[in-house]
C-alpha cells in the first residue's frame, strides 16, 4: 500500500487535471455534479499526499536521498529531458499543504459560489489550478517545473478574471498575467542558460555539477543566471518591484484569493527558490539580494497595508509582506524557517481570506472595512475564526505565526542586524494592521442591516483552518520541523527567548495601540492621520507605484509603439507594397508579349533559334569540349 502511494505519486496532480477536463467538457452545466467531481478529485490528492507524508516519515526519505521516479520525455541529440516525480520532505510538505488548503477552499467554494452562473466553470478552473500547483511541487527539473509554473499563471489569469463581465476583474487578470510574465521571461532565460552551460536542467544532476563548477570557474556567470532565475519568483511571489498584480488579484472570487495568496501561485516562487536552493545558497551575492528583496518587500507590503480600506486589499498587502518574510528567510540561509512560515502562512492566510469572503458574502459584497463594524455578535463563528487568524499572523504565542516568524527572525538576527530590525518593525506593523482590521470590522456599532447567514459548506473549512492556524506552529516546533525539511545538516530548532519575547511584546503593544485607535476610540484616528500627513497619503496611494508604472508605460511603451507603428506603416508595408507593385509592373510588360497571335510567337521562337546558333558558333570550342567531357563521363 505504502509503496503504491510512492510509485503512483504522479496521480496527485493528474486526478484534479482530469477533473478539470471532465467538468470543462461534460458536466459544466450540472452544478452539483461538477462540485462533487472537483472536490472528490482534490480529496483524492489530499489522501495521497497524506500517504506520501507518512511514507516519507516511515521510510526516512530525506532531502539528501529523495525518492525519484522518471520517464523519458524528450530525447534528441544534445537535449534530454525527463518528466518525473521527486519526493522528499520538501515536496511532501508542499503537497500536503497545497492539497489540504485546496480541499478546504473548494469545500468552502461549494457554499460561496452558490447561485453563480459560472459555477461549473469555476470548479473546472480551480481543479486545474490545484493540479498545476501539485504538479509543480513534484517536478524533477526546471523545464517540467516551468510548464506547471506557466499553467499556474494561466489559471490565475482565468480565475482572477472569473467575473469577466466586470471590467476591473478583466483588468486585474491581464495585469497579473503580464506582470508575472515579466518575471517568467527572466526565469526562462535563466533555465536556457543553465541548459547551455551544463547541458542539463535536472535538479539532481545540477546539484552534483554546480559545486564542481564553482570550484573550477567561480560564481560570476552563475550569479547572473541566478538573478535571472530569481526574476521568476519575484514576479510570481509578488516581491518588490513586481508586486503590483497581487493586490488586484482580489478581484476574483474570495476562495480564489485565498488559494492564490495562501497555497498556490505566490508560494510557487518561494518553492522554486527552495527547490533550487543548492544553486542559490552557493552564490553569496545572490543570497544577499534575495534577503534584501525579501526584507524590503516585507516592510513595504506592511507599510501599505496599514492604510488600506478594502478588506481583501489589506490582506493582499499582508500577503506581500509575509512572502517577503519567506524570501528573507531563504536569503539568510534558513530554508527550514521559510518553509515553516510558508506552511503556517498557508493556513492562517487562507483562513483570513475565507473569513473576509464570508464577511463580504454576508453583507452584499461590501469591501470597505469602515462600512462593516460590529459584526462580532451577528457572525460569532467568523469572528472567532478570524480572531485566531489575526492572532496567528500577528505572531502571538501560542498561535502558529509566532513559531514560524520567530524562526525567521532568529535566523535573520544571526546573519544581519539591519535586516533583523526591519523584520521586527514589520512584525509590529503586521500586528497593528491586522488588529485594526479585526477591531474595525467586528467591534463598535453595526452599520449593516441585512446580514445573510452563511452555509455549512463555508463554516466547516473555517473551523478546520482555524484549528490548523492555531496549532500548526506549535506542532511543527515540537516535531522538529528543522530535522525534516532542511538544507544541509539538520538544524535543531531552539527558541531564542530574548528575541521571542521582544517580538511578542511588540505585537501586544501593536494590539494595544490599535485598540486605542480603532476599538475604544480613545485616540482620534483623524488626528493621527493628519499628523502623519504625507506619509499616510503615500502609503494610502501605495507609494504611487501603479501610477509610476502607468507613467513609464505611457513614455516608453507608447513611444516605442508609435515608432513601431511608423516603421510598420511606411517601411514594412512599403517593402511589401513595393514587391507587389514590382511584380505587377513586370507582368504588365510581359503580358504585352502574350498577343495570342501565333506568328509573333513563331517570330520569337526563330529569334531564339538564331541566337542559340550564333552562340554555338562563337563558343564552338567550349561546347565541343563540354560534349567531349560529358561523353567521356557517360560512356
Amino acid at each position, binding site marked *: 500500500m505504502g509503496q503504491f502511494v510512492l510509485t503512483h505519486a504522479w496521480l496527485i496532480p493528474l486526478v484534479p487535471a482530469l477533473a478539470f477536463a471532465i467538468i470543462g467538457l461534460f458536466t459544466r452545466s450540472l452544478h452539483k455534479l461538477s462540485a462533487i467531481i472537483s472536490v472528490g478529485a482534490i480529496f483524492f490528492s489530499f489522501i495521497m499526499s497524506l500517504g506520501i507524508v507518512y511514507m516519507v516519515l516511515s521510510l526516512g526519505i530525506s532531502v539528501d536521498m529523495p525518492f525519484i521516479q522518471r520517464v523519458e520525455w524528450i530525447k534528441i541529440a544534445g537535449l534530454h529531458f525527463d518528466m518525473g516525480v521527486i519526493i522528499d520532505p520538501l515536496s511532501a510538505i508542499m503537497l500536503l499543504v497545497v492539497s489540504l488548503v485546496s480541499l478546504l477552499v473548494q469545500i468552502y467554494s461549494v457554499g460561496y459560489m452558490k447561485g453563480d452562473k459560472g459555477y461549473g466553470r469555476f470548479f473546472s478552473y480551480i481543479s486545474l489550478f490545484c493540479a498545476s500547483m501539485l504538479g509543480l511541487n513534484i517536478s524533477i527539473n526546471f523545464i517540467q517545473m516551468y510548464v506547471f509554473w506557466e499553467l499556474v499563471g494561466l489559471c490565475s489569469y482565468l480565475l482572477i478574471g472569473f467575473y469577466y463581465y466586470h471590467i476591473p476583474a478583466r483588468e486585474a487578470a491581464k495585469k497579473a498575467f503580464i506582470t508575472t510574465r515579466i518575471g517568467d521571461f527572466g526565469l526562462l532565460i535563466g533555465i536556457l542558460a543553465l541548459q547551455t552551460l551544463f547541458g542539463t536542467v535536472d535538479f539532481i544532476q545540477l546539484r552534483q555539477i554546480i559545486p564542481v563548477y564553482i570550484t573550477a570557474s567561480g560564481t560570476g556567470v552563475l550569479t547572473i543566471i541566478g538573478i535571472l532565475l530569481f526574476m521568476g519568483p519575484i514576479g510570481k511571489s509578488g516581491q518588490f518591484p513586481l508586486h503590483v498584480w497581487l493586490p488586484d488579484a482580489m478581484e476574483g472570487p474570495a476562495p480564489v484569493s485565498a488559494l492564490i495568496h495562501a497555497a498556490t501561485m505566490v508560494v510557487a516562487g518561494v518553492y522554486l527558490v527552495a527547490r533550487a536552493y543548492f544553486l542559490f545558497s552557493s552564490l553569496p551575492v545572490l543570497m544577499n539580494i534575495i534577503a534584501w528583496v525579501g526584507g524590503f518587500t516585507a516592510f513595504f507590503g506592511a507599510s501599505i497595508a496599514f492604510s488600506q480600506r478594502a478588506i481583501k486589499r489589506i490582506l493582499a498587502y499582508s500577503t506581500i509582506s509575509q512572502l517577503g518574510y519567506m524570501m528573507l528567510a531563504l536569503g539568510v540561509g534558513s530554508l527550514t524557517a521559510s518553509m515553516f512560515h510558508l506552511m503556517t502562512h498557508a493556513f492562517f492566510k487562507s483562513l483570513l481570506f475565507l473569513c473576509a469572503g464570508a464577511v463580504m458574502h454576508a453583507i452584499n459584497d461590501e469591501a470597505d472595512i469602515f462600512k462593516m463594524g460590529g459584526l462580532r455578535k451577528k457572525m460569532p463563528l467568523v469572528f472567532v475564526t478570524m480572531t485566531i487568524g489575526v492572532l496567528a499572523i500577528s505572531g502571538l504565542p501560542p498561535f502558529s505565526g509566532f513559531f514560524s516568524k520567530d524562526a525567521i527572525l532568529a535566523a535573520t538576527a544571526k546573519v544581519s542586524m539591519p535586516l533583523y530590525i526591519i523584520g521586527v518593525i514589520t512584525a509590529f506593523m503586521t500586528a497593528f494592521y491586522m488588529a485594526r482590521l479585526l477591531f474595525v470590522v467586528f467591534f463598535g456599532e453595526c452599520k449593516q442591516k441585512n446580514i445573510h447567514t452563511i452555509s455549512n459548506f463555508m463554516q466547516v473549512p473555517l473551523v478546520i483552518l482555524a484549528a490548523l492556524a492555531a496549532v500548526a506552529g506549535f506542532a511543527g516546533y515540537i516535531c522538529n520541523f528543522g530535522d525534516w525539511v532542511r538544507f544541509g545538516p539538520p538544524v535543531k530548532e531552539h527558541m531564542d527567548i530574548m528575541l521571542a519575547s521582544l517580538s511578542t511584546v511588540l505585537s501586544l503593544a501593536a494590539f494595544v495601540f490599535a485598540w486605542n485607535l480603532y476599538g475604544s476610540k480613545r485616540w482620534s484616528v483623524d488626528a493621527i492621520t493628519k499628523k502623519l500627513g504625507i506619509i499616510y497619503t503615500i502609503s494610502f496611494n501605495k507609494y504611487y507605484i501603479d501610477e509610476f508604472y502607468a507613467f513609464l508605460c505611457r513614455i516608453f511603451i507608447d513611444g516605442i509603439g508609435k515608432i513601431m507603428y511608423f516603421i510598420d506603416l511606411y517601411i514594412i508595408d512599403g517593402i511589401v507594397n513595393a514587391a507587389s507593385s514590382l511584380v505587377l509592373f513586370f507582368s504588365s510588360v510581359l*503580358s504585352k508579349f*502574350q*498577343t*495570342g*497571335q*501565333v*506568328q509573333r510567337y*513563331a*517570330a520569337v521562337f*526563330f529569334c531564339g533559334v538564331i541566337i542559340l546558333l550564333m552562340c554555338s558558333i562563337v563558343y564552338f570550342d567550349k561546347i565541343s569540349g563540354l560534349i567531349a567531357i560529358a561523353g567521356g563521363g557517360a560512356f
Partner: protein
Amino acid sequence: MNIGLTQFLVLSAALFCIGLYGILVKRNLFSILMCIELMLNGVNISLAAFNYFLPMPDLSGQVMMIFSITVAAAEVAIGLALIFRIYHDFNTVNIDKINNMKG
C-alpha cells in the same frame, strides 16, 4: 560555272528563309500553309544534295527526303482540314482575327 554543294545549300537556305518570312508576315492561312511547304522543300533539296555530294553516297538522304515529302502531304491534308474548320468557326482565314490564345 561548276555547280557544287554550296550552290544547292544556298538555294535550300533561300527557300527556307522565304518560307519562314512568309510564315511570319502572311495574314492568310492558306499562304502560311504554302510557305510551310516552301520550307519543307528547302530542307528536301539540302537532303538530296547531301545525298549526292557526300563522299560515300548511300540512299539515306533520299529516304529521309521521301519521308519528309510523305509527312508534308499528310500535314497539308490535316492543315487544310484545320483551316476549313477555322473558317467554319471564325468565318475568316485572316490570322490576325484568330487570337484566342491570348492570355
